[in-house]
């Protein structure tokens, strides 16, 4: 991503909005791909910064995570508030705020806007989903609303690029002509007590912050501010609260009541709504999609089609990438002399990186599905449908989305747990998220299903097996969560409140941006950690290349023309290598799972990043030198015999193929996930715990799979 070179003086705005308002679309459309993720120590929430130039004015936008209210209850929400108010030492205070609100649900969306109005900054109000509002019979007089509020109110349709110029003009105009928003009305007693607290805050103060401290019931913000600004606030706050209470004012409800009442007063003259009940599109669709029977049927249908599409659509693309990789390999072999360097580049680096890139099509398709489901509004229905089940294991429907995201990759999945307010719920979700089958497990599933569970079965069978493999995660993760929540993480659950947004056509730009970001981060990991691991594995398989009797394997292989002799030498070399020795050492451990030392080696080598397993398999099955495509590896695996001895039975049968897949489904073979868990929990204990429990679980499950499977052979 390009570094953003900010000119000396650019106008800085912070973009605020409720979730599901099209805030991300607006940000992407305004900044193009000209943005980067800001780094803030202590919190890891993704806050994007972008910029654009309009009429030679440089505008910088800070994308604040979607929220219904600027009432912070967690460190991440606190960061948003700090950024908006300019309390964060890493960012200057914004010059203005841009609030985006859903026109089809104006009153609730304006709640956040009323908080923005109290910051002392100029505000522009952008209204999205005006077409949806009109469709349900709601008519808004933008001009009247703009006059009533005294600030620019602009209707936009970001994905159709409507209203953008008008919005940009309004932003530019703010530089010279500051139009301040009105201040929402509270009762006189509240105002005078708020003023007292405002006085204590000094130059960091704003009406919003003072009010927030007064209304907040749990004292989180006061505590944080006292620490960060070294102020003493609590005694004054408690005094004011007591004073208001003695006047009969209910501090729990006064803020929301006053704000909504004020919103109504502002909005009512500018909006006309249809009388009586209107059955809209969303109502009709929801009658089916959240139906007890049809809704669940549709939910499983969507999940099943997603995985079948992954299998069917990605296949030809993966073959092309495989062909491209072997072309590069052949090219390298033709220009480089035989020897260690060529072996390193072709067998180590190219195999490793190429073997990862080949799975990019699946990631693109998976993220395509997930972001379409998210953007059209179905994700929330899935959480609604699944909440009761999740509640049974002590989680909420909110855990469903992080867990479902973990189907693509546990790293964003663990990060997505930040939406879960309850700490224990969040921790339990983090601990079980890596059990969900991520995209890096797909290579193993695809390879082994293709090799052992495709030929001789119906066209629907591979998709079904793949679905069942994913099912392992979908079943095990909640069970593990239930276990954790009833033992080490026992406690009271968090309130579960979730908006069910209006259904809409997914925006191409949102879907594209999410696919692009996911693929890029996957490739970055592929290019660094995974390639490094592959080179390491190549090295422990290459060295020592001279046997104890003084034979130089690479030289002897090069000297002979006999293919059988070459293969025999290659196997002996690999058995003798550092990794081969370790593999044979642990063979007694993996034999009960139906694996020989080669599978043991490949599994061992994939603990830092499971993506490498297919590449490692190619190497330990002697394909490293002339691997042409996945098809070749697949055939080799089908024909492989125990310890490469032609007199031994076939290495793989259905039980041992399944046992390997089950092991990979449950094992925590991902250094990145463990690092993210460390980062999110702030301790090494939880990543260590995750690694140990998952590896143990994987071993036991693989053992059972193989041993029980043998009974049916």
């Amino acid at each position, binding site marked *: 991503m390009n570094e953003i070179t900010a000119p000396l003086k650019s106008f800085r705005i912070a973009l605020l909005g409720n979730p599901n308002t099209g805030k991300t679309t607006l940000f992407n459309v305004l900044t193009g791909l000209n943005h980067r993720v800001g780094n803030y120590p202590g919190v890891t929430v993704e806050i994007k910064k972008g910029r654009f130039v309009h009429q030679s004015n440089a505008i910088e936008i800070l994308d604040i995570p979607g929220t*219904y*209210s600027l*009432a912070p*209850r967690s460190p991440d929400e606190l960061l948003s508030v700090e950024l908006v108010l300019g309390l964060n030492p890493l960012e200057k205070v914004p010059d203005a705020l841009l609030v985006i609100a859903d026109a*089809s*649900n*104006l*009153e*609730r969306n304006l*709640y956040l806007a009323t908080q923005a109005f109290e910051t002392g900054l100029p505000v522009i109000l952008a209204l999205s989903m005006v077409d949806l509002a009109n469709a349900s019979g709601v008519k808004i007089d933008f001009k009247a609303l703009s006059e009533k509020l005294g600030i620019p109110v602009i209707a936009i349709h970001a994905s159709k690029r409507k209203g953008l110029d008008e919005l940009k003009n309004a932003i530019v105009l703010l530089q010279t002509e500051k139009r301040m928003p009105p201040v929402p009305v509270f009762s006189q007693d509240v105002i005078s007590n708020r003023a007292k607290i405002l006085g204590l805050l000094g130059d960091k103060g704003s009406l919003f912050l003072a009010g927030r401290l007064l*209304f907040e*019931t*749990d004292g989180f913000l006061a505590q944080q501010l006292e620490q960060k600004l070294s102020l003493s606030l609590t005694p004054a706050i408690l005094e004011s609260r007591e004073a208001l209470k003695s006047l009969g004012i209910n501090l*729990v*409800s006064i*803020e*929301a*009541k006053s704000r*909504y009442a004020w919103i109504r007063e502002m909005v009512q003259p500018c909006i006309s*709504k249809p009388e009586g009940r209107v059955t809209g599109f*969303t*109502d009709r669709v*929801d*009658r089916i999609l*959240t139906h*007890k029977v049809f*809704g*669940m049927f549709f939910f499983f249908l969507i999940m099943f089609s997603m995985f079948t599409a992954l299998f069917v659509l990605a296949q030809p693309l993966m073959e092309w990438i495989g062909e491209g990789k072997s072309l590069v390999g052949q090219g390298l072999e033709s220009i480089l002399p035989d020897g260690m360097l060529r072996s390193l580049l072709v067998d180590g680096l190219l195999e490793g990186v190429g073997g990862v890139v080949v799975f990019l099509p699946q990631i693109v398709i998976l993220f395509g599905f997930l972001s379409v489901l998210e953007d059209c509004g179905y994700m*929330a229905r899935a*959480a*609604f*449908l699944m*909440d*009761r*089940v999740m*509640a049974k294991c002590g989680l909420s*429907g909110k855990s469903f989305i992080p867990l479902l995201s973990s189907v693509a990759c546990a790293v964003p999945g663990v990060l997505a747990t930040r939406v879960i307010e309850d700490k224990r719920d969040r921790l339990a979700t983090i601990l079980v998220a890596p059990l969900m089958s991520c995209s890096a497990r797909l290579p193993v599933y695809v390879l082994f299903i293709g090799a052992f569970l495709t030929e001789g079965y119906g066209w629907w069978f591979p998709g079904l097996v793949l679905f069942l493999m994913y099912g392992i995660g979908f079943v095990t993760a909640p069970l593990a969560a239930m276990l954790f929540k009833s033992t080490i993480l026992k406690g009271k*659950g968090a*309130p*579960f*409140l*979730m*908006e*069910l*947004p*209006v259904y809409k056509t997914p925006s191409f730009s949102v879907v594209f941006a999410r696919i692009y970001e996911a693929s890029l981060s996957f490739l970055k990991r592929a290019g660094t950690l995974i390639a490094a691991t592959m080179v390491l594995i190549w090295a422990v398989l290459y060295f020592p290349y001279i046997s104890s009797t003084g034979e130089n394997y690479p030289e002897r292989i090069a000297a002979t023309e006999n293919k059988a002799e070459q293969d025999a030498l290659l196997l002996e070399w690999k058995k003798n290598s550092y990794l081969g020795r370790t593999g044979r050492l642990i063979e007694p451990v993996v034999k009960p799972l139906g694996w020989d030392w080669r599978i043991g080696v490949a599994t061992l080598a994939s603990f830092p990043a499971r993506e490498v397993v297919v590449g490692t398999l190619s190497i330990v099955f002697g394909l490293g030198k002339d691997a042409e495509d996945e098809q070749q590896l697949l055939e080799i695996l089908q024909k492989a015999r125990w310890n490469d001895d032609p007199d031994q039975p076939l290495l793989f049968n259905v039980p041992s193929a399944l046992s390997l897949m089950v092991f990979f489904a449950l094992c925590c073979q991902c250094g990145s996930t463990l690092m993210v868990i460390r980062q999110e929990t702030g301790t090494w204990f939880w990543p260590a715990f995750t690694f140990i429990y998952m590896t143990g679980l994987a071993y036991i499950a693989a053992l059972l799979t193989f041993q029980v499977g043998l009974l049916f052979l």
Partner: protein
Amino acid sequence: MPTLDQVPIGCKGIISSIRGEDATVQRLMEMGIIEGEPFELVASAPMGDPLEIKVQGYRLSIRKSEAARVFVQVS
């Protein structure tokens, strides 16, 4: 007076009060569940929980345990 979890699906009415003084109550209010607001109980999830209500013109999923704190007046 019944609470939100006790009324039948399709029921419409007015929210009369919310029990409690904790952060949950503030959350409910921020989301528009406020005394005097009209509501409609639209649906319930497959196993009867959570509930889907319409309030402030939008749909909100709320669990029965939280709905039990919201007293309503059925119209």
